[in-house]
């Protein structure tokens, strides 16, 4: 079959835990583009995003033996490592760079590239779910997740009472879970 040889992530992680560098190469080929996209969004700097990407895969290599499928997917494991490193970098900067809206660090041409192992389904469904959130709630959730802003920083940035920010962030995450779980399917039609 044409898909012969496409190995499940869990098998790659088992091989990686035994020090198999080909497993690391395959995981890097599969997931470096999506992790790099996350790091670019968080750090707004190619140089720093590449540095953290490198650290993340080295950490994945070192911690492969600790990975357990029941605790989440390989992408979740890898994104947790990458986000943790990026948040530490943001905090060490003291001030976060302002995202410039007209400067797109992403290359839009890659969106349609067919020669990459990138499944657009999840991206489209997750975007749909995010866009169903109330706009301010979505903004607060994204800034907490991508930029690591605390409740009080979000309250200051959005001129909202602290209690309101807490309620909205919590609501946004719970709603997103609901939308990604698909119980409101009819609204997705």
């Amino acid at each position: 079959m044409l898909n012969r040889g496409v190995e499940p992530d869990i098998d790659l992680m088992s091989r990686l835990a035994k020090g198999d560098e080909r497993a690391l190469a395959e995981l890097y080929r599969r997931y470096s583009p999506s992790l790099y996209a996350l790091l670019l969004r968080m750090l707004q700097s190619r140089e720093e995003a590449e540095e953290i990407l490198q650290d993340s895969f080295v950490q994945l290599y070192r911690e492969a033996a600790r990975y357990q499928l029941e605790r989440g997917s390989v992408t979740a494991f890898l994104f947790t490592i990458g986000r943790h490193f990026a948040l530490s970098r943001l905090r060490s900067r003291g001030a976060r760079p302002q995202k410039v809206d007209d400067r797109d660090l992403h290359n839009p041409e890659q969106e349609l590239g067919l020669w990459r192992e990138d499944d657009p389904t999840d991206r489209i469904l997750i975007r749909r779910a995010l866009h169903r959130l109330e706009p301010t709630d979505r903004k607060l959730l994204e800034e907490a997740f991508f930029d690591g802003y605390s409740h009080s920083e979000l309250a200051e940035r959005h001129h909202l009472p602290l209690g309101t920010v807490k309620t909205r962030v919590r609501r946004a995450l719970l709603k997103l879970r609901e939308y990604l779980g698909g119980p409101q399917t009819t609204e997705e039609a």
Partner: protein
Amino acid sequence: MKDLRELLPDYALGLLEGSEKAQLEQALQSSPELRQELEELQAVLLQIPQSLPPEVPSPSVWVKIKHKTIPRRDFLRWVAAAAVLASLGLGGWGLDHYNRYRTLAEEHARVARWLADPDVRWRLIKNAEGKSLGTMLWTEDGRCLMILSEPPPAGKVYQAWGRKTEGDPVSLGVFTTRVFETSYEGFASVGVSLEPPGGSPQPTQPLGRVPTS
């Protein structure tokens, strides 16, 4: 005392501090329910980055990773092997990758056609533990498209099943790719299982099921 469950979203985002954080962490140690809900919320959060279009990093990143992870002796052997493969051009490795990417391109084109249809409905395919295994798209006219997160493991195939409200499930086809299109007409739900090559008369290792109404 505040319901500790309410604190889970903030904790998942890393926004909880002080006594509330300590209190929740203590409760998490003794409550499997709280731990499970926290894992669910963390899984949702970690789907957010997948809303971003992927970006290809510079090749120098991978070279640096290899330097830090692969022992030098093996690294030199790896470089030599890569040079041999490169000199072979369209060797078996290249052909295998060409076929794999061609399949992926076909899968993406099919999924893109489905997603362009405004009447398409969708739902995640989840296993008994609530872990997402993929997505099912369907339309009212009886067509459905299953998109699994991963291809089946070696030595196994996926098999799709239709179920009426009563009676045994009926096979809707066997597949070894990640994307499979079939008809669910007349069935109240569609499921998928892992089976030995060639499929089985009844599901032996069910993975998940989605109602179509």
